[in-house]
């Protein structure tokens, strides 16, 4: 029965990757920037809410809401005042800007909230449900459900609704979209806000399953980026599927080969996919702009 347990546990971790990746994809497709500081939106939500309910005594739900709001505000301000003013001029300046965000958020959290790792609300992570002999962890189920639901809803919104069409239009070509009357600035703000919320959910889930400090989201964000490479930053469904799959893959590798094998195993996966996927799959599709 441990195989099923590994599968579910891995899928839950993969669900976290997917939540982070969804936000990264949205930001990338609308703002054309890879947000290397994305994991820190989750950190802000979780670590700050910990501070609010643990040190200041606020009710946990209020703490979480306030912290998520903070993450959203930080995201929007960052985009409006920093990222949008750097993108076009210098290759990589948007990357450095998001790195600046990563550094700043980490340093501030460390100094204000403390450098020590803290345990967080359990949110069902210690509760075990017994379904006919199979022990299922409640938090795993919640994580998988939330991740799947978010991904499916987002997919549907993107494809079937007007809002989704606006998003895609702005992602394709911002100027044309604006000339068609789409409020691209508002779309952008909404995108960053949504991405921050997704990251916050991921951050809180991870904190409840493990613990929280100023750096705890970094490995998760890294895995999300890897799933992004594998699936392609311009797509949506496929990279998210890779995200779930990556969690399961890692889980089995650790169990069968030991934790030391994870890094090379993930690497091998990347090399294999990149080496054997057809070229059309791998192209970024943005070339004809000489």
């Amino acid at each position, binding site marked *: 029965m441990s195989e099923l347990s590994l599968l579910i546990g891995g899928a839950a971790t993969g669900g976290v990757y997917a939540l982070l990746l969804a936000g990264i994809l949205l930001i*990338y497709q609308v703002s054309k920037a*890879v947000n290397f500081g994305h994991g820190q939106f989750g950190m802000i939500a979780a670590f700050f809410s910990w501070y609010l309910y643990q040190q200041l005594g606020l009710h946990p739900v209020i703490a979480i809401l306030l912290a998520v709001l903070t993450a959203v505000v930080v995201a929007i301000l960052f985009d409006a*005042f*920093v990222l949008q*003013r*750097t993108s*076009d*001029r*210098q*290759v*990589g*300046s948007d*990357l*450095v*800007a998001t*790195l*600046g*965000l*990563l*550094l*700043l*958020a980490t*340093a*501030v959290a460390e*100094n204000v909230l403390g450098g020590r790792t803290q345990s967080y609300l359990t949110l069902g992570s210690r509760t075990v449900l017994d379904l006919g002999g199979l022990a299922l962890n409640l938090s795993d189920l919640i994580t998988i459900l939330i991740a799947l639901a978010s991904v499916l809803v987002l997919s549907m919104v993107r494809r079937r609704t007007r809002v989704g069409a606006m998003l895609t239009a702005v992602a394709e070509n911002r100027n044309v979209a604006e000339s068609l009357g789409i409020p691209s600035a508002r779309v952008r703000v909404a995108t960053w806000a949504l991405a921050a919320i997704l990251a916050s959910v991921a951050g809180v889930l991870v904190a409840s399953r493990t613990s929280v400090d100023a750096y705890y989201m970094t490995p998760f964000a*890294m895995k999300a*980026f*890897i799933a*992004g*490479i594998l699936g*392609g*930053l311009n797509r949506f469904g496929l990279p998210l599927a890779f995200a779930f799959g990556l969690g399961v893959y890692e889980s089995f590798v650790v169990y069968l080969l030991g934790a*030391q094998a994870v*890094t*090379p195993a*993930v*690497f091998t996966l*990347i*090399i294999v996919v*990149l*080496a054997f*996927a057809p*070229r059309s799959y*791998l192209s*970024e599709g*943005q*070339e*004809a*702009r*000489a």
Partner: protein
Amino acid sequence: MPERRSLAHRLRPVLPLALLVVLPLLLDSFSLYQATMILIYVTAIIGLDIVFGRAGVLSVAQAVFIGIGAYAAAWMSRTTAVSIGVELVVAAAIAGVAAIVVGLPALRVSGLRLAILTFAFVELFQWVLTTFASVTGGTQGLRVNPGGFGAITTADPMVGYWLAAAIAVLATWLVIRLRRNPIGRAMAAVKSSNLLAESVGVSTVRTKLTAFMLSGMLGGLAGVVLAHVAGSVTPAGFTVFSSLDLLVALILGGTGRVHGAWLGAAYVVLVPEVFARLGIPNAYPVVSGAVLMLLLVALPGGIASVLDRVRDRFRPRGGHTLTPATERSSS
């Protein structure tokens, strides 16, 4: 287009070189160390500039090449008695090969995907360093024995300085020559647009791999000097954040121009020192994130662009200010 080789133009390198020669005689021990560190950074950053600033490939793996050079030097200094010349050649070779390997995915992916992949390479390097602890010393690293020729060894800090200076000058010369060279022009074309480059017969892949190789070799050289000057190598010195420091330094200093690398190196070593002297060293990491963003918004071309603007004011009209292709904004 041949450049006018006026006397003034020929004398241009003399002044900085003279400064480089005189400097160590004026500095105290600690400042000499800082100057040496700046020179090491210069070499590393020029390496990054070749692959990123000039060929337009975003790579976060520069720390790996420096690390390979450093660990190679450490190992050679402990198990062999070869001169530092051998160490430099071997390190540059290994790092160059490693860089080609890192760059190989460029055959199939490009842009940000490649950048994230270089991120993954750094993690792989860290994994190798920690897992094979019997060879690499694990998290505590290795002590580096002095290197040199015969009796002249890096146990003497002046020797370390001269070594770093010589390699920095070599790197500078290399990258200046590069720009006027077909390889350099190929890189500029590739940076502008892959499609354009291919359409004029430039092999995108070969150019990118060459760029990686050069950046790797320079990183390896910088690593050797770093190992001897620091006296030890540990994995903590070659992480993603180390690479990011270099990237930050490059962008702040200004890409595509060799003095950008020098300015960036000076920034990364001297600005934390300023904070330390003011008694608030911890403010640096917090502030640097903010300052970084500020500079990006206000000075996208880096500090070098400011100096360029100042210089242009004094340049006589009709001069041949060759605006490098790398500076035209690539959309």
